[in-house]
């Protein structure tokens, strides 16, 4: 075919011949000419093989590599014939023959031969050859020990392993195995199968040690595909449902319909601004508190409807913070600079009132074992209490300000409070260690992620900051778009795998962002007053609750296809007034 260059990339070749292909589809007499030239083209690849030939529109996928991992995938799947056929037809072998020999020698236990072959492979520097030799000889050593050939094992150690002069600590360990055989981790019996398994493991280890061009990692193609799927999932801004598997045929992209965006219920039990709410860990209850000094426990029924369970009167001041016990059987409430109360969820009874003479409580939280309680106090200290009301410990100093949030990490080791207007303290109460997060603006509230690795901080400059608090503290993301400059608003994590961030706003809307991309996904309107707090049901990614200055709580969910009789009349919104 004129004009075709032999060493151009395949895609170019195909394009040029599209004229011929066009001839094919038209069924003209060009056909013969076209098919002849096509098969000519097809026959050519073998001859013009370049090591750097690429496939794909981006020019980053090397053809040789692609064919090799496809061949490996075929072998992994058990299609040996097809794999061999591919190697033959493409002229590209999966492993060079030296490497094949090497791998077979390992499986056969021909240690000395394999070490010799190792040197013949090439593409490696001395250090790697030594490391690989060490690992192979270790296996030889252990197999000899297992076969009770102690003197031979010792000889291997002395004359082959030690002279490599690497990893003296390991040499020391090996020599102790001679006298303390029970420590032998490998534990290969003379059972043939166990031995083969152990040798295969050795091969895996070698494959990790040697450059990947020498031995291709097993199931590499599948691994790459899984990577791509992960990326697609992360990029999916609305991914909030585990239903629906990912297909390899199209890029994954959820629609917006799985994110709670419809008001399903409006709860009107409070008589004043609703300040705080939170779902229990098991998602079966919702607790809310209001400036009317009342705390209410709501129950989430099986059909998703929320109804009143208990009213908890008793506080003399508005309750600014609520904490569910780890088993959700008890509730801790904290009045603003007042007392701290512990309630039984099932009966609604107040079990204990914690007071500290002359001082008030600011914040409260449960230890992960459910046996101790932490609280912030007006004198800026933090106290730890047991369930019988005894103050077990007290940490003084500037530990907390008047902000009511208190976080406790999952391992129970760190307490998180706002210790200065723009600083958050991560206090390891046993080790007395302190880590600080410095913000440039006034901090209003914060929320801890379920895995205790991230902290979401709401600031008065209309930004929400996401910090990584595991290991070195780092600012990870910022979320903007909502209105927050005067009130105490709280934000939260939520959705499937906590992939979303939700926050209230002074413009009466609920804002939802996709965590990884930082993109604002939804703004939900409906409330007629500032939205102070949001809580996402931890066990139901399709349920979100919001608390507002308009005295109501709204339950948000996804569009339900089937609505029952009542809904049709009231536009699908349930009003709940403490009873049906």
């Amino acid at each position, binding site marked *: 075919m004129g004009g075709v260059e032999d060493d151009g990339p395949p895609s170019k070749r195909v394009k040029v011949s599209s004229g011929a292909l066009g001839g094919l589809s038209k069924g003209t007499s060009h056909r013969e000419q076209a098919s002849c030239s096509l098969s000519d083209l097809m026959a050519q690849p073998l001859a013009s093989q370049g090591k750097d030939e690429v496939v794909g529109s981006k020019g980053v996928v090397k053809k040789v590599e692609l064919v090799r991992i496809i061949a490996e995938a075929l072998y992994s799947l058990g299609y040996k014939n097809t794999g061999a056929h591919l190697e033959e037809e493409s002229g590209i072998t999966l492993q060079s023959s030296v490497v094949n020999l090497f791998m077979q020698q390992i499986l056969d236990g021909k240690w000395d031969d394999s070490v010799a072959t190792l040197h013949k492979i090439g593409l490696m520097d001395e250090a790697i050859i030594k490391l690989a030799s060490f690992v192979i000889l270790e296996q030889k050593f252990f197999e000899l020990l297992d076969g009770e050939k102690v003197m031979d094992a010792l000889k291997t150690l002395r004359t082959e392993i030690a002279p490599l002069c690497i990893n003296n600590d390991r*040499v*020391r360990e090996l020599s102790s195995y001679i006298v303390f055989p029970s420590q032998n981790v490998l534990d290969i019996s003379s059972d043939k199968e166990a031995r083969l398994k152990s040798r295969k493991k050795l091969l895996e280890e070698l494959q990790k040690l040697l450059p990947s061009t020498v031995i291709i990692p097993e199931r590499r193609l599948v691994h790459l595909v899984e990577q791509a799927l992960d990326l697609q999932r992360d990029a999916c801004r609305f991914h909030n449902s585990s239903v629906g598997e990912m297909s390899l045929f199209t890029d994954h992209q959820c629609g917006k319909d799985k994110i709670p965006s419809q008001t399903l219920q409006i709860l009107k039990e409070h008589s004043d601004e609703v300040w705080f709410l939170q779902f229990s860990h098991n998602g079966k209850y919702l607790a809310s508190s209001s400036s009317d000094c009342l705390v209410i426990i709501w129950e989430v029924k099986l059909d998703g409807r929320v109804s009143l369970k208990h009213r908890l009167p008793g506080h003399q001041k508005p309750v600014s913070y609520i904490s569910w016990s780890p088993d959700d059987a008890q509730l801790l409430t904290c009045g603003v600079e007042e007392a701290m109360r512990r309630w039984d969820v099932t009966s609604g009874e107040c079990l204990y009132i914690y007071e500290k003479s002359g001082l008030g409580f600011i914040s409260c939280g449960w230890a992960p074992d459910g046996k101790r309680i932490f609280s912030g106090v007006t004198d800026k200290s933090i106290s730890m209490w047991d369930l019988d009301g005894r103050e077990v410990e007290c940490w003084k100093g500037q530990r907390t300000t008047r902000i009511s949030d208190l976080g406790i990490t999952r391992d129970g080791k760190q307490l998180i409070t706002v210790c200065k207007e723009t600083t958050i303290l991560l206090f390891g109460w046993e080790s007395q260690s302190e880590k600080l997060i410095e913000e440039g603006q006034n901090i209003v509230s914060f929320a801890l992620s379920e895995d205790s690795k991230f902290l979401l901080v709401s600031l008065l400059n209309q930004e929400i900051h996401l910090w990584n608090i595991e290991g070195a503290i780092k600012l990870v993301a910022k979320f903007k778009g909502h209105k927050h400059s005067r009130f105490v608003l709280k934000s939260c994590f939520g959705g499937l795998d906590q992939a979303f961030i939700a926050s209230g706003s002074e413009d009466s809307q609920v804002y939802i962002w996709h965590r990884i991309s930082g993109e604002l996904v939804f703004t939900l309107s409906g409330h007629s007053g500032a939205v102070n707090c949001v809580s996402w049901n931890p066990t139901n990614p399709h349920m979100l609750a919001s608390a507002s200055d308009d005295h109501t709580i709204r339950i948000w969910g996804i569009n339900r296809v089937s609505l029952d009789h009542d809904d049709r009349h009231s536009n699908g919104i349930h009003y709940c007034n403490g009873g049906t």
Partner: protein
Amino acid sequence: MDVDPRQWENIDVNDKDIHNIVLSYLVHNCFKDTMESFVSCAGIEQPADHLEDMEKRKRIFHSALDGDALKAIELTEEFTPDLLENNKDLHFDLLSLHFAKLICLRKCTEALGFAQLKLTPFGTMQKYVEKIEDFMSLLAYEEPEKSPMFHLLSLEYRQRVADNLNREILAHANLPRYSAAERLIQQATVVRQSLNQEFGKDGNQLFSLKDFLER
């Protein structure tokens, strides 16, 4: 009477004290002949009971120092039967000396056998496990003197073990573990440091043993 530390040169020293210091040193190190000659020259009383014991102790000490640990153990058992039993650390150290000797002689098979028989029983206690591992690692090298644990084959190590053995035997006989001379030098070192700190530049008349001996 409080003496100004800077006036130490004017303190009276009793001859008898010095005799005792020298004697204690000689007895501690089993210099029997020297001790006898010193006693007769200085015209002092000979410490009666210790002569024969000194001879035995001397043999034990030198066996250990030469690395002939098995002989040292045998003699010790003869001399003070339950000493090694009550002193596991020392017993282990002596056995390990024998192991070290076998290694030096390149008798690896024998060394391994000895270790399996004699050393591994100590392995029930964690503190010995690490020591055993240290010694076992010597087996891994064809030139153990160049291995990371080469110090276990050294004269210094044998010296330390022999010294320990000597001290334990002395203690067993209700004699002091450390000779008076040793204690004095230790004390003088500490005092010198402390005075240096207290008087600083003033104290250039402080006694320095090192300088004194180098004169």
